[in-house]
């Protein structure tokens, strides 16, 4: 629901009138190290990637330590693919470029031969995800919104009668604009299940953001992902826990919900992709 975001804007408004910020020093304790998993398989035929790193103390202020030498496999119950570590990028494991996911199948990621807790014994981690189907996009249109100072990408398609969760990625001239996990809009269809989307805005090119400003004639590509509820929650949690909190609208901070077992942090996602493109005009 967007209203909470709007309300946060309301708080922000009051803060403009009153509040100030100041950097402070805080001493934080450390916690034990966990494996961090960031992996996905989609309906695209491509190299699917699983990235393994480790957690560090909150003020560590350095690159996250990569986890090398793991045995990483993805299986759909009948077929199994072994991922190979990219020699240039430690901790990044890839499938062959010919692999693609099929909607309706459940994919399982297995990670072996890692010893995160340094006790001399290796641990095994698994995560599973159902690959959700998705309706194809009828069309998109673009409009410059003077009230937002942004180009708006409007979506025309039907929402399926099932419970759906969507993520919207936007490319401008083949460059991904929504390039961190918290930037794409994610929605669930609780309030519009089965409806025609009527050209609702799902992605924006904001004038004020460096490199993002759109110009007439720019090519735009909208990617819509059909994701699971768990992945939706994972992204939504990250958004909540990294966007700052205030005593008024935030609940107590809470750990991000992932789908990897054995105490690891992160998510192995499966999703289907549908695309539509246009030109800003």
């Amino acid at each position, binding site marked *: *629901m*967007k*209203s*909470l975001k*709007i*309300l946060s804007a*309301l*708080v922000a*408004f*009051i803060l*403009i*009138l*009153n*509040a100030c*910020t*100041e*950097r*402070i020093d*805080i001493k*934080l304790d*450390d*916690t034990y*190290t*966990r494996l*961090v998993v*960031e992996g996905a398989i989609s309906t695209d035929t491509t190299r699917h990637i699983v990235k393994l790193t480790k957690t*560090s*103390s*909150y*003020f560590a*202020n350095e690159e*996250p330590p990569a986890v090398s030498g793991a045995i990483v496999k993805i299986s759909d119950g009948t077929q199994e693919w072994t991922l190979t570590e990219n020699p240039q990028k430690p901790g990044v494991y890839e499938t062959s470029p010919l692999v693609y996911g099929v909607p309706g199948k459940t994919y399982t990621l297995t990670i072996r031969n890692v010893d995160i807790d340094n006790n001399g014994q290796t641990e095994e981690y698994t995560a599973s995800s159902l690959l959700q189907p998705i309706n194809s996009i009828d069309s998109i249109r673009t409009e410059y919104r003077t*009230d937002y100072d942004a180009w708006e990408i409007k979506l025309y398609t039907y929402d399926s009668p099932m419970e759906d969760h969507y993520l919207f990625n936007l490319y401008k001239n083949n460059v991904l604009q929504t390039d*961190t996990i*918290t930037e794409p809009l994610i929605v669930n269809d609780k*309030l*519009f*299940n089965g*409806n025609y*989307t*009527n*050209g609702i805005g799902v992605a924006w090119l904001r004038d004020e953001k460096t490199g993002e400003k759109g110009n007439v004639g720019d090519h735009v590509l909208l990617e819509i992902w059909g994701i699971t509820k768990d992945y939706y929650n994972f992204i939504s*949690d*990250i958004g*909540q*826990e*990294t966007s700052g*909190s*205030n*005593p*008024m*609208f935030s*609940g*107590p*901070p*809470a*750990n*991000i*919900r992932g789908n990897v077992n054995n105490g690891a*942090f992160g998510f192995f996602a499966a999703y289907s992709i549908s695309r539509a493109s246009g030109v800003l005009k």
Partner: protein
Amino acid sequence: MKKITLIVLILLFSWPLIAGTPDKSGNSAVKRYTLSGSISDKNNGEQLIGATLFVKELKTGTTSNVYGFYSISLEPGEYTFTWAFLGYESIEKKIKLTANTTQNVELVSKSQKLSEVEIRAQRANENVAKNEMSTVKLSSKTIKEIPALMGEVDIIKALQLLPGVQATSEGATGFSVRGGAPDQNLILLDEATVYNASHFLGFFSVFNNDAIKDVTIYKGDIPVQFGGRLSSVVDVRMNDGNNKKFVATGGIGTISSRLTVEGPLVKDQTSFILSGRRTYFDLFLPLSSDENIRDNQVYFYDFNAKISHKINENNRIFLSGYFGRDVFNNDFFRMNLGNQTFTMRWNHLFSQKLFTNFTFIQSKYDYQLGTTPGQANSFTWKSQLLDYGLKADFNYFITPENNLKFGVSSIYHVYHPGRAAGDGDNSLFTEFIVPNNYAFEHSIYAGNDQKVNNKLSLKYGIRATLFQNIGSATIYNYNTNFEAIDSTVYKKGDIFNHYFRIEPRFGAAYMFNDKFSIKANYSRTYQFIQLAQNSTSGTPLDVWFPASPNIEPQSADQFSLGFFRNFLGNTFEASIEGYYKLMNNTIDFKDHAQLLLNEKLEGEVRVGEAKAYGVEFLLKKPDGKLNGWISYTISRSERTIPGINDGRTYLAPFDKTHNASVVLNYRISNRTTLSANWVYYTGNPVTFPTGRANIGGVIAPIYSDRNSYRMPDYHRLDVSLTLKSKEKPNRKWSHEWVFSVYNLYNRHNAWSIQFSKDEDKPNTTYAEKVYLFGFLPAVTFNFKF
């Protein structure tokens, strides 16, 4: 079965009525006569609540009730009576009591006259002598003297300066009493529940001090006539309206202006008061150079109105109401919200000993928000809660030694938790309704205040409540993972679930001597409705939800023990009170709970136990050139709830180990008063990150146990200077200037602490505090004519 219980209860409650009446029992053969009447302010006719009547010869007395009514029954004879009230000249009179006598008394306020030597009324040791603890009453005059945020005099902020009462966060009107949650406070305005006592996202309270007579907070020792909340009762009484002459009072403040008119419609018989307030800082927004600010509309307003009519000595009626609204509009977004209360009361004297009040109450809180219509994403969202209540309260002044209270009440709750829908044909949103809740809350109570002898007083009572969930309703059934498996639909009018709960209350006071007493108290309270909120300071988006087949009523058992001692001829009042509170069926919400527009809200609730204990110190100098108080509380409040913090005990969000406040007023001259208050408390418990993971281009936090860190300690000094105009006997007009400064030494108290990623250095994180109010001066001009 239910019927039998009810009959037993009625018998139980009527027993003290029969047994306690001396006229009917054989032992008390001596005939008694009753002296009764009302105690009011001579200047404006306002009834005085808690004024005292003292009988010199018997060294006993009574106090006026919330309607200014008193009654005392004595054996025939001649007595010296003294009527007194703090801040007023007392009146002494010899009366030969040979028949039932009505004596209405008007006291003269001594606020205008400043005498160097304070003559204290006979019963000034009331705080020692009265069998009442954990209770503080503040008059609107006292509240007005406390320096206020932006000059807005605020009842709730004044209460937060008392021991055991703590603001939820900087500038917030939400408060926690003895470690409880903000929704455990019953806030009453002329007996009507005020569900959301705040304006402007909680920074100001809904109470306009000009319309208020006084406020009493019960932090424990909750009188038997109140129920329905665990932690406290805040009883706010509106002025009845001046029944002597027309008076207008008002003020022009930094953010709002006020105007109150009151006067007699029929002298000494019918009076009215009408009070309004509106903020106007939004009028300055268009001047802002920032476009985002310029296009906003932000304001609140409220009205209080009351009519009091005295039909005759035995009958009086009161109609009172409150209406307030907060409005926020801009290009994208609209929101408006507010409270509405209406109270209709009829005071009736069945006899000089039996005072009755019948009340009809309506309370409402609603909010609406939405976006600009006509877009694909346009929507509106409405929520409302509504109470209708009927009450009958009886006050039976049997003898000076026994004062019996009993009564019944019924509340009908109607909750519309939320309806969201598209706005306009273009909108893609379908209507979404969280099913309504309907419930009845019936209560019956009886309690007696008994003076056993000159040293020992007892107080005992019982309250029984029947809570009923009524259809139409959709109740989800949950499995052990709190996932809804199916739902049951109940027809309109079906009573499909009920809870019957009994609340015993007991208190005792023992006076070692005139100046020193010990008091003990036990009270059990139940709460049948609660607020779905997991933020600390509270939002306007309140969703109240009732006990149900899935959620049992919350309960609290509180034990208090206190020592009360007055010094220097009652110039100083000191008290030490300890409390221990055990709470059951305490609710909290799971991590990442979805509380708004969620028809399966009950699946987000986790239930467990809570415990709170502490010691409160209060030293008070009620009047004089220099007056005020110093309070200090040391306390702890914790919860143990399966499903939260892995079932381990954690600190309640409002746990503040140390909490101190100093409130001082110094009358430099008849026209000049200097006031200051200083507050200090331990920072709120918070959850901080102890680790981090890089994922998807962001740095995600990994958290400590819940509430295992603390915010930095909070402290702040506020001051104000009041300059009054010269009093001239034949001039009606008077005015005053109030200059105030909030946070005089400009401490940057943390409102929240954020952990963020440095935009320039992608692997660097830092902590940042947000603070709201630095040094903040304000000017208010008040007038009266």
